[in-house]
């Protein structure tokens, strides 16, 4: 019985909300009217008591605070981050391409029969040996390489790993 009554209460609340009177609701459910009436009167009182509007000044003030925070979040941090991304990625991409191209160019330069071809990815292993060299120097070879004169503390002879181990 109670399971049905709470469904009826909800139906009556919908009717009250759409402008029906309490009496009209009770007429629809004459058998349950005695039990429904105090419950619906409670509902009307609670709705009336809790219907407190947000004052217009407070509404505008809260809106201002929230949108100021929106501006702070969306115009400072994300834009700065976007700018960083847009500036870093092209530079990074260009550096990677240049490294790859350099590796390909160096390893494919046909100088001597004993030269070996090293894939660009393997250049990462030899990076510390290679950066001192520029075009015109034999960089990757089975033979020991000779560094240019006046190359600081670098050894004059650098051993390059055999092709098998690269």
């Amino acid at each position, binding site marked *: 019985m109670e399971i049905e009554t709470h469904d009826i209460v909800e139906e009556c609340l919908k009717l009250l909300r759409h402008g029906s009177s309490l009496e009209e609701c009770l007429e629809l459910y004459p058998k349950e009217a005695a039990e429904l009436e105090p419950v619906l009167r409670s509902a009307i*009182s609670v709705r009336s008591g809790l219907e407190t509007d947000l004052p217009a000044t407070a509404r505008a003030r809260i809106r201002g605070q929230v*949108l100021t925070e*929106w501006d702070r*979040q969306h115009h400072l941090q994300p834009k700065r981050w976007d700018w960083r991304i847009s500036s870093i990625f092209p530079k990074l991409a260009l550096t990677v391409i240049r490294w790859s191209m350099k590796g390909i160019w160096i390893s494919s330069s046909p100088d001597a029969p004993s030269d070996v071809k090293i894939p660009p990815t393997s250049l990462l292993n030899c990076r510390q040996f290679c950066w001192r060299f520029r075009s015109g120097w034999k960089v990757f070879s089975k033979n020991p390489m000779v560094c240019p004169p006046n190359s600081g503390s670098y050894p004059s002879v650098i051993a390059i790993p055999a092709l098998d181990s690269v």
Partner: protein
Amino acid sequence: MPAENTNEDTLVLSAQQGDRDAFAQLYEANVERVYRYLLSRLGEPADAEDVTTEVFINAMKALPSYRPKGTPLIAWLFRIAHNQAVNHIKRRARRQETPLLDTPSLEQAAAYEGPEEEVLSNIRLGEVAQAMQDLTDLQQQVLNLRFAADLSIAEVATVMSRKEGAVKFLQFSALRALR
């Protein structure tokens, strides 16, 4: 209702993409119900206003991860509002500014100085809040969501993660206890 949801989903999507006006529209559409719910929970208009601000700022920060999933935005906002209200009540209890009881007394409501209509409104709120003190927390929550926030049974069920039948029963038992 589906048209409203579609419109709301469009606004949410725009706001997620950084559209400030879309977020402002979502604020305007929901602020009144969030405030009423918080006022009924916290009792003090000033507290309700502060927490309403916190709710919308938190919603704004969490908006990129929000997915509608067929439920209205207000259900999500009330989850945030409920958590903020609980935190606020705990903070207030720790500060011991007011008793742990989170509803205004009739004297407090009547002593509030403001326009006549506002005073009457606060007295009504105080009476209802006092009457609701004897209800369980779940019953109070259902009445607040139904009558202060003006949510449907389905929306309340979503907010409270309960079945609609359970919400109807809680509503009925709460109203019967108040009579």
